[in-house]
């Protein structure tokens, strides 16, 4: 299974220009709403056509604007699951599934029965979509897609129509339901956790362009761009530079960090990023490796941890200015830190091994 896409389009508020190749089976596309990620899916499905471009699936063009190839969506073998699941409201669950199956009445019935059983919706077979919950609708939509049996399944924000609890449940369920499907599944989402859980390979999209592409785990560990770092959930992204003496300057945090020998390959560094979970609170008597002086701005508390938003303190012990950036770190609620108070001063430290270097 391989998919290669190269599309260009002039959309209302931006240029869409994306190219990628992949042979993964579970691909995530991460991007904010309006970044062009749903449009990319619609081009692959053939629902819309880009101004120009080529899309090749398993060695065959399903779109090639130069050669005037543009296979109809009906013949592409690419199924699209919409955010609202797009179940036909005039049909029962069974009819929704049977209508995409080719063959005799009996074939339809048997295959629909099998799928409804597999997806645990047999008890809903005579219900209309309007009578189903969001999670049930999603299961029906997926059963319908499986009934059709496409080579590629496109999931457009599959969980955005569900509420909190159900969302997490369905994330697990969806993966289970797709377990024995061996075609390509592409999921589009603005949620980094959904994409991280689901995909082996990820594309990060910003303003119509692919800014990051790679193995999901590696890319989340060390994104290559500032936007990519932001979208994979890093809040502490700082301007930085390395001088001739291999010292890393981080003016926003007032740090000068000497780097080890052999770092010369990293001379184009523009930013560094530090994940909040790697920032530790220093006790009064600890010196620390890279200490920063902060003031706690606000605290978000849940069962296990505090998420603390902070600003850097100036040399005269006042805050730099009102518009100073707000960063964040996380602390586990353990013996040492049972409570944290707003507007208190703290010292934080981090291991320079944990720094993510960003060149773009």
């Amino acid at each position, binding site marked *: 299974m391989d998919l290669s896409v190269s599309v260009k389009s002039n959309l209302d508020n931006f240029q869409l220009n994306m190219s990628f190749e992949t042979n993964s089976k579970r691909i995530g596309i991460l991007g904010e709403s309006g970044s062009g990620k749903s449009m990319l899916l619609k081009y692959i499905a053939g629902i819309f056509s880009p101004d120009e471009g080529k899309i090749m699936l398993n060695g065959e063009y399903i779109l090639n604007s130069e050669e005037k190839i543009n296979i109809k969506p009906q013949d592409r073998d690419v199924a699209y699951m919409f955010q609202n699941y*797009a179940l*036909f409201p005039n049909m029962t669950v069974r009819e929704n599934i049977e209508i995409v199956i080719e063959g005799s009445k009996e074939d339809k019935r048997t295959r629909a029965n099998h799928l409804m059983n597999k997806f645990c919706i047999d008890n809903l077979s005579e219900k209309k979509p309007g009578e189903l919950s969001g999670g049930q609708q999603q299961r029906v939509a997926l059963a319908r897609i499986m009934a059709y049996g496409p080579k590629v399944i496109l999931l457009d924000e599959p969980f955005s129509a569900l509420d909190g609890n159900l969302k997490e449940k369905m994330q697990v369920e969806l993966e289970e339901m797709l377990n024995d499907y061996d075609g390509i599944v592409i999921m589009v989402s603005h949620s980094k956790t959904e994409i991280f859980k689901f995909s082996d390979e990820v594309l990060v999209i910003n303003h119509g362009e692919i800014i990051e592409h790679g193995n999901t785990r590696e890319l989340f560990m060390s994104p290559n761009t500032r936007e990519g770092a932001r979208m994979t959930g890093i809040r502490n992204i700082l301007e930085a530079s390395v001088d001739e003496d291999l010292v890393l300057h981080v003016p926003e945090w007032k740090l000068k960090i000497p780097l080890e020998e052999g770092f010369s390959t990293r001379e184009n560094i523009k930013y560094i990023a530090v994940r909040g979970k790697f920032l530790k609170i220093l006790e009064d008597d600890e010196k620390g490796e890279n200490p920063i002086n902060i003031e706690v701005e606000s605290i978000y508390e849940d069962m296990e941890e505090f998420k603390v938003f902070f600003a850097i303190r100036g040399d005269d012990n006042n805050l730099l200015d009102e518009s100073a950036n707000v960063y964040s770190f996380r602390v586990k609620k353990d013996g040492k830190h049972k409570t944290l108070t707003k507007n208190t001063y703290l010292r934080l430290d981090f291991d320079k091994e944990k720094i993510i270097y960003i060149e773009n």
Partner: protein
Amino acid sequence: MNELLEVIKNLDWSPLYISIKTAIVATIMSFFIGIHLARKALVYGRKKRALLDGIMSLPLVLPPTVAGFILLLIFSKRRLVGSFLLDTFDISVVQTWLGCIIAATVISLPLMYQNARAAFDQVDKNLIYAARTLGMSERMIFYKVLLPISKPGLLAGTILSFARAMGEYGATSMIAGNIPGKTGTISQAIALVIDDGNYLRAGTWVVIVMTISFVIVYSINVILNKK
């Protein structure tokens, strides 16, 4: 009271049959042509669709007599289409029941078209896109998804078309005339008897046409909404 009974006893019922017959045939024609054109509008580009919308709103905004005049121009035996129909198929439109049907269809068609078009437009486009990516043919999507979901709008269009066809006067009087027993519809009968100053007979017809229209519109509603 006696006078009224006398009127009813001597009433020529032909305008009633002619009106109902005309309205039924015209509604059926409008139903199919209107839905067909509204479906075409879905796939047309912006300009072509605007043109179709424009043409389809003309009979709504122009006086029916203007439509009647244009129909006369087209179907007059001395003109191209009219003489062709007469010579080749021995069909004549002017001063015949066919004229009634054509006039009523032309006048009622825009109502069917506009309602069908609005109904189709309201259907969630994602349903159609999803159906396409699931391999369903355009034909299947139209009959199994688009039409059933649009039913309420199509129903409204059908009822309005029928009502309009039943009451058609202007265009009909110009192209079909008012030949008693042949092209004389209720609307024309009412106009004629009022001209004669016979208000009782006119009133009788008014009550009849109101009752009939109501019963038919009500029945269509009940039948089509049953499912």
